[in-house]
């Protein structure tokens, strides 16, 4: 996962497998040689080939890849018309897929421990990231939180992969009761050294993890989630406020090309809400 990612390709490609995870959740596997070479934290812009009345594609993180069969999988939650259109694809239907796009997660240094914090569809990239961490021999642990048991639809998939996992729910219906940051803090107090934090999920969760990282002076990456129009850096619709050292003011930066993964210290949160 440290090799430089392939340059993105825009292809019409078939949905080869669709697995419902109940409710608005599903796993969708497409055949697309380019995206099948994605690294963790990268995403693809996807829309059905039969476009309907929506103009723009929608961004989805790569949850898994299989370069040998040229396939990749996304973990999708249907929330509005664009994600619903992808959700409604049937096996054999074609989609327009552009990817892989964006800058993914930075691998931890050798010997460095990785703590992954995911919620909602934001847990998706950590499936792929875990594979790389395991291959690289890095110690890691995934904290997966949701409001209640029904909002942890990827648990089965993650367990099947043998990913070291701590679950939590706000209402205690599964795993520990409370925010995902509670077990994270517990773990931080237990492990030696300075683990790296990686967060992807609802903004309040990412902010909370970023705050913990800044208090504890831990390296932390967050994967931001703005509205995206193109994925190519051309529409400038996806900008996020980034404060770089030496700059007098934060600047609007396209998350699709400079992110979606950013060093948490650079992110100016106020402006995103």
């Amino acid at each position, binding site marked *: 996962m440290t090799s430089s990612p392939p340059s993105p390709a825009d292809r019409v490609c078939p949905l080869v497998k669709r697995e419902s995870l109940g409710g608005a959740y599903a796993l969708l596997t497409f055949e697309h040689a380019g995206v099948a070479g994605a690294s963790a934290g990268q995403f693809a812009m996807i829309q059905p080939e039969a476009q309907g009345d*929506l*103009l723009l594609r929608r961004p989805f993180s790569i949850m898994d890849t299989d370069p040998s069969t040229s396939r990749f999988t996304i973990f999708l939650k249907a929330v509005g018309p*664009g994600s619903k259109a992808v959700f409604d694809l049937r096996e054999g239907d074609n989609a327009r897929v*552009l990817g892989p796009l964006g800058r993914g997660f930075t691998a931890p240094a050798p010997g460095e421990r990785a703590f992954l914090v995911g919620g909602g569809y934001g847990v998706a990239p950590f499936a792929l990231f875990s594979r790389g961490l395991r291959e690289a021999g890095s110690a890691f642990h995934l904290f997966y939180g949701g409001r209640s048991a029904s909002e942890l639809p990827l648990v089965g998939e993650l367990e099947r992969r043998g990913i070291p996992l701590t679950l939590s729910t706000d209402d205690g219906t599964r795993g520990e009761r409370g925010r995902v940051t509670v077990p994270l803090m517990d773990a931080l107090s237990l492990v030696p050294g300075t683990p790296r934090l990686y967060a992807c999920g609802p903004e309040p969760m990412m902010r909370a993890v970023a705050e913990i990282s800044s208090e504890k002076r831990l390296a932390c990456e967050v994967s931001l989630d703005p*509205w995206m129009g*193109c994925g190519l850096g*051309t529409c*400038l619709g996806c*900008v996020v406020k980034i404060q770089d050292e030496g700059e007098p003011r934060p600047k609007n930066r396209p998350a699709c090309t400079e992110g979606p993964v950013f060093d948490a210290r650079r992110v100016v949160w106020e402006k995103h809400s």
Partner: protein
Amino acid sequence: MTAPSLGVEIGSLKLRNPLLAASGTCGYGVEIAHVVDLATLGGIVTKGLYMAARDGCEAPRIAETPAGLLNAIGLQGVGIRAFVDRVLPRLREHDTAVIVNVCGETVEEYAEVARIASDAPGVHALEINISCPNVKTGGIAFGTDPLMTRDVVGAVRKASALPVIPKLSPNVTDITVFARACEEAGADAISCVNTFLGLAIDVETRKPRLAFGTGGLSGPAIRPLAVRMTWQAARAVKIPIIGIGGIASASDALEFFIAGASAVQVGTMNFSRPNIYAEIESGLVDYLTRHHIGSIRDLVGTIRYPR
């Protein structure tokens, strides 16, 4: 029969084909070069450039509406000098015409940006943006007042020997007034049109869906309005018209040529269909072949109106 010709001329600007990527929808060209073969385009129009770098509007900046896109980017950009020094050298490596979209808050700034762009090797023409609805000074204010339109175009005309192409705002009662003002001020061609001022509201929060408030509407939704304006402008002036608005297929582009456009720009559809040019180009070739028309130039303005 030999293959029909797609080459067109916009003033002294020769284009291999009449398909341009519209300003603000292809960055500075270099961003898309790894996905789109720029040699399949006639040329690209850069994102709008002022003298200084600008950070643009707050997010959210884009929202989808039925068959349309509402945007308020606010002309974020690197500034003309950084473009010339740092971007243009990379863009020159690609075989495509480069048209700089010139912005300003004052007549003088337009002229100054135009001068710098004209002096840079590898800039082929200037499009004057007097029609951006998403900035507080300049932009649309110039494009909705015929006298200011004339002054800006005249000043850029003096500052540059390149083809000068003002881009009109559709937010006016009579577009022919502005087309004529441009022609009289020495424009070589006219881009027709920029976005329509719109407003979309998130009813749950009762806030505009864009942080800036209003935005510019683009996409297939506006196509019939843009075709109408292209047709009106083409009848009002002798200089060529570049048709813009909602083009998503060869058939859409053909409507503009038939209405009187000598070239067209694709905007919003670049976002979801970056490789649309090859498809449009082959559609044009098919059509011309099928209708025994030797050159796209022979199609321009051939609308049968009245029927």
